[in-house]
């Protein structure tokens, strides 16, 4: 039977990949978090190793012992260790115990106790590990080789140094965890006898809760400032140009929907726009509008409605206009060295290569009413993040 590989990147940047192996009865889950020793602060080499040890000593509602028992109870073989780039949390069990494993692992990643009382003992362990290298000349020479051959911090030993261990405090450890244990860049891989949809749903629920949220900042200002964000697809994604197309239907040029509906037809504000913003693992559409207090609610409502209306249809003439706009700015960019220097770096960073102009042109040509519509329907934002600032709180709708 053919193996099936699934992949999904959640709104918060967390990536899940899974391979179904129907012929086995086990399942293994592997989580890599970008928090390896390459991220150790210069004065605390070894902190990632210490974290990988202490992180299993209690999480969520379980203390150290309870957690250990819970994992034993489902026959979970596991380990957590620091490498150069990642901290890796790994566990294997019967496939029917996978859901329980995910619950426990989610606690370990998101709610570790990092008990203060254990710090000294964990550090002691780590120190002994460093000392033991002295008794293993074979390993010592290879570590020295790596250190000289690879550029720092890639050549660093994950164990760190004795001085580094001394400098590590509970505070520093907590900070290191907070800073580096983030969904963006983290990869969860699962192999075994699994079902994709329930797995994806559970991981989403436990590790990528809906990011939507609202917040109001009270400030005595003339205008109410409105910021809206919702998830989109990343730079290299097959839907990337359809997503760019959708943003341009909303806010490309002055004939676009937001400008026309919010400003031109209703005179609600001076400035309103939407733009695509991305990181390597996660991308969003960010919208802005600023308006006097009395008109703020209507501005927000109309803006959200326009975003929602994208799924109701895209007009041929809109696509025609936005394609010319995209092409113009692409070609006109070629005039200035500063613009080009920026965009070739962006290409390299996201795609690992610089795209020839013809390729970009082709991608722009590929945008159609259909491709945009299919995209906005698939990625129709369920939840918005909305932040407002001003002297009146708004109603954020459902």
């Amino acid at each position, binding site marked *: 039977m053919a193996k099936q590989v699934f992949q999904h990147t959640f709104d918060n940047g967390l990536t899940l990949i899974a391979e179904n192996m129907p012929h086995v009865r086990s399942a293994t889950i592997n989580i890599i978090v970008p928090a390896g020793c390459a991220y150790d602060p210069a004065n605390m080499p070894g902190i990632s190793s210490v974290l990988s040890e202490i992180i299993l000593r209690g999480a969520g509602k379980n203390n150290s012992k309870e957690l250990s028992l819970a994992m034993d109870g489902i026959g979970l073989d596991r380990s957590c260790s620091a490498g150069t780039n990642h901290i890796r949390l790994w566990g294997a069990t019967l496939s029917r115990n996978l859901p329980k494993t995910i619950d426990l692992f989610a606690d370990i990643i998101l709610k570790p106790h990092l008990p203060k009382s254990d710090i000294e003992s964990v550090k002691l362990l780590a120190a002994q590990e460093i000392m033991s290298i002295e008794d293993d000349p074979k390993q010592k020479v290879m570590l020295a080789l790596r250190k000289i051959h690879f550029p720092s911090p890639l050549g660093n030993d994950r164990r760190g140094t004795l001085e580094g261990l001394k400098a590590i405090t509970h505070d520093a450890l907590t900070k290191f965890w907070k800073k580096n244990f983030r969904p963006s860049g983290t990869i969860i891989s699962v192999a075994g006898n699994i079902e994709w949809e329930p797995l994806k749903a559970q991981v989403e629920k436990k590790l990528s809760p809906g990011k939507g949220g609202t917040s109001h900042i009270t*400030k*005595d*200002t*003339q*205008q109410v400032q409105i910021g809206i964000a919702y998830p989109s697809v990343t730079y290299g994604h097959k839907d990337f140009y359809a997503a760019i197309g959708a943003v341009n239907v909303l806010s*490309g*040029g*002055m*004939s*676009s929907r937001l*400008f*026309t509906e919010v*400003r*031109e*037809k*209703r*005179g*609600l*504000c*001076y*400035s309103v726009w939407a733009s695509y913003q991305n990181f390597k693992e996660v991308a969003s559409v960010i919208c802005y509008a*600023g*308006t*006097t207090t009395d*008109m703020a609610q209507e501005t927000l409502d109309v803006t959200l409605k326009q975003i929602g209306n994208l799924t109701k249809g895209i007009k041929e*003439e809109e696509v*025609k*206009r*936005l394609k*010319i*706009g*995209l*092409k*113009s*700015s692409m*070609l*006109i960019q*070629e*005039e*200035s*060295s*500063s613009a080009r220097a920026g965009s070739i770096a962006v290409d390299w960073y996201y795609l690992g290569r610089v795209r020839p102009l013809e390729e970009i042109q082709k991608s722009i040509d590929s945008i159609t009413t259909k491709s945009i519509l299919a995209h906005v329907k698939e990625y129709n934002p369920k939840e918005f993040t909305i932040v407002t600032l001003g002297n009146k709180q708004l109603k954020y709708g459902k």
Partner: protein
Amino acid sequence: MTFHQQQCSNGLTIIGEVIPEARSAAVGFFVRTGSRDETVEESGVSHFLEHMLFKGTKKRDAAQVNKDFDKIGANYNAFTSEENTVFYASTLPEYHQDATEILADILRPSLRSADFEMEKKVIIEEIGMYEDNPGWMVFDHARKLFFADHPLGNSVLGTTQSIIDLKRDQMLDYFQRRYIASNITLVASGNFNWDTFLKKAEKLTTNWKFGMARRDHIRQTSGSGEFKLLEKKTTTQQNVVMICPGPPAASPLRYAANLFAMILGDQSGSRLYWSLVDNGLAESADCSFHEYDGAGAFYTSFSCDPKQTHKNLEIVIKQIHELITKGITEEELEQAKSKVLSRIVRAGEKTMNRLQEVGMTWVYLRKYKSVDEDMQTYEKVNLRQIQQLIERYPLLRLTTTSMGPLAKLKMPEIPKQPKVPNAQHS
């Protein structure tokens, strides 16, 4: 690069800089009118009118204007200053003629009442937006305080009240007075064919009204010299703007003035940078030279922790005093020149920037300067010209405006404008 010019029979001037290697072409109408040309009752009308031009003509309604620009992928906009209202668009070469057509069309607007009332709301929003930005507000107040009764003190945006009170007929009257052919320059830059452009442009503008648009009160001013503190409790930083007189746009000293401002207060590596920003006494500090028709001014500004304001004022005054009494070094001048030259070259790579440069140079000097000529002029500036600038303009006659949480602020003693060493010999 080749330059062309043509004076039409109705008084419109058409100029163009053809750059065959450019990937785009830009076109713009430069109307020599702005807030300084307004009466008190009309305050804000230039800028409001700028918005109204995008609201449609006999041929197009507002939505159609935007659609037609977007249809050709134009990068287009407009701005209003104290003296100029400029409408511009840049496109791929094949759409240059279309862009010219749309711009020429909107320069003869319908000014429909319904659009007028709708856009009023947008303007009031724009004013509200700026009112929330103390860094911008302080400049508006500072200009008013410096220019006092000089028309250059007029606010570009006007006030919420002046916009509410404004009638469509007043705008129409202003339009008919100011948007006459002789008061407008049509400028193009980039990859386009001059003959085709000229023929098309002449045809599009042939019916424009002939006549004269006067500009009154063209005179220099050394400013009120006053000090004003505006308390605004809701801000955290204290903003300060100090204005002193400088040469007008047509003065040959304008190049020296730009370099002088750069030496005193460029955002990196200038005297104010080293004495205020590098050491963290101020969040930012800047000096820039603004040139106008018949007048000029240096705007020195900084924003900082309120507690630090008095001390920072002393430092700025000391820096200016030192520049006047001790002059600048050859090395500083060369460094400033390198910065200007690099900026000119880089700006010259974009047709949109060339359009602004070529257009403004023409409006103020009735001259064309290529990128190379512009660079040569800057290269030729020497210490003697900087000295002339210092001798001729009372740079320590500062009009100071500060806005922020401070309820009290004492303005430090400003030393008398010192006798400049060179001046004693002459």
